[in-house]
């Protein structure tokens, strides 16, 4: 199924099921997804390791965001999606979230008419502990600005609200879509630090254009091209392979720390 790129060691981590201790928390096989009758994901296989960050890479428009949305059940999809071995591919979105899938969407999607505190309270899930201590430790600003309408926050602050909503609950996996998009370099560092902490709490599937952030955080990568997953492997091996990064991402991962951002 998976056509591996010609790099030396890219195929060492395959898509097949692995031994128990490292069984993936999220397993996606032969995923297809469509929006308004348009096929946006053709065939994606991926797995999220039980710890750390797995990065989902690819050029613009190859179906990264659609893959995340399909896993969340926000767009029409078919194929296998298993969370800790349980099939979630036919569940409605709210049940998927209820099973412990935290979602940080591409454009933050904070509720702009609600206050910061209300945004967080809305995210409180029944049957889960609510880690306000962690959230406010990571983003002290959110505590100070609790009564402010989220729509009046800066882009970086909105991203913090969005991340905080996902970190608040006890999740089994976090799906985080382009958290550093459009942020100033200083904020990128701040968000990256928060992501590193997030990955200690729950495994993360991260869509990220900034390859330096990927290099710092991710252990595994999955690369998409035209709605298909075409490469699975170790993150640093892939990023150190100028041929592969040039071919699949259009950048020299090894030499350009700013990546495609």
């Amino acid at each position, binding site marked *: 199924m998976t056509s591996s790129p010609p790099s030396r060691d890219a195929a060492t981590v395959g898509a097949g099921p692995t031994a128990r201790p490292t069984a993936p928390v999220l397993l996606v096989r032969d995923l297809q997804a469509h929006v308004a009758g348009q096929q946006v994901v053709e065939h994606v296989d991926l797995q999220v390791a039980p710890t750390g960050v797995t990065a989902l890479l690819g050029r613009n428009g190859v179906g990264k965001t659609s893959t995340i949305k399909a896993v*969340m059940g*926000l767009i029409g999809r078919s194929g296998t999606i298993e969370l800790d071995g349980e099939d979630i591919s036919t569940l*409605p*979105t*709210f049940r998927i*979230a*209820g099973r412990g899938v935290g*979602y940080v*969407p591409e454009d933050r*999607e904070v*509720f*702009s*008419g*609600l206050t910061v505190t*209300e945004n967080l*309270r*809305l*995210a409180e*899930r029944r049957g889960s502990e609510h880690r306000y201590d962690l959230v406010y430790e990571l983003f002290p600003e959110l505590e100070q600005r609790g009564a402010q309408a989220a729509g009046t926050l800066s882009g970086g602050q909105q991203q913090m609200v969005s991340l905080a*909503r996902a970190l608040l*609950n006890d999740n089994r996996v976090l799906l985080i879509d382009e958290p550093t998009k459009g942020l100033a370099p200083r904020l990128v560092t701040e968000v990256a630090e928060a992501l590193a902490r997030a990955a200690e709490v729950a495994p993360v599937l991260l869509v990220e254009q900034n390859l330096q952030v990927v290099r710092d955080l991710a252990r595994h990568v999955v690369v998409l091209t035209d709605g298909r997953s075409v490469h699975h492997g170790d993150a640093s091996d892939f990023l150190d392979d100028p041929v592969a990064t040039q071919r699949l991402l259009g950048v020299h991962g090894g030499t350009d720390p700013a990546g495609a951002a």
Partner: protein
Amino acid sequence: MSTVVLLLITGVGLGAIYFLVASGLSLIYGLMGVLNFAHGVFLTFGAFLGWEVAARMGATTWAGFAASLLVGALAGAVFAALTERFLVQRLYERHIEQVLITVGLALAVVALFDGIWGTDARFISGPPWMSRTTTIAGANVPNDRFVAIVLAVVVLVAIVLFLQRTRYGMIIRAGVENRSMVTALGIDVRTAFTLIFTIGGAAAGLGGVLASHAFGYVSPMLGQTLLIFAFIVTVIGGLGSLTGAAIASVLVAVLQQFANYYWGYGDFAVVVLLAVVVLTRPSGLMGKKVTA
């Protein structure tokens, strides 16, 4: 001067009734994307049941009037909740079919009301004080208008408090903004859908009883007539906006009263206002946001 005051207060009184219909319509549309054609039926049902109860308890007593308000609101709420749960929800996320369902339901139920209560208007009476007038700045204002205004303000405050202070209110405000993100936080918005229909139905049922007192009659077409003005109000106010609905209700009704008196074409003035708003601010005065 007294004419202006009279037109102004009766206009606000009419606006109060528009608001009771439009608030639910606007919130339902904002949250669910459904244009609820059956909303007028909730109103008519409330008005008829309220009238039946008042007639049995003594239409001219305050107890009868209070009971008719209560029963009217309850009737509207129950009818609306059942409509949402058994018809609208079956077509989850299929907005046009949901609209069609409410159109069919309205058609069938109005016909059923025709069969039960007859097509002719039933003239009603309330406590004698209601039909008397109070003189304000030289204008003799019918007392029932004050009742309508007070109750509409109570409903407005109650809905605002509900939206601001309760978790479901928060879910509804968030859902009007971005429904899919609410579900992605693990919240089953369908409960909020049923709730918003119930609240809207209750307000419409209450509006039905008040409208029957303001107009002096109740008929199967009462709700359908008011529904069209409520639609106009929701478009002008901005779909999904409670504040917009409140402002536009008063604006439309006052304009209608003045235009009717001085020009004789109140309905046209309202349609012209609608055209102007659509041309200059297509998303309405308050846009799509529940700001309360």
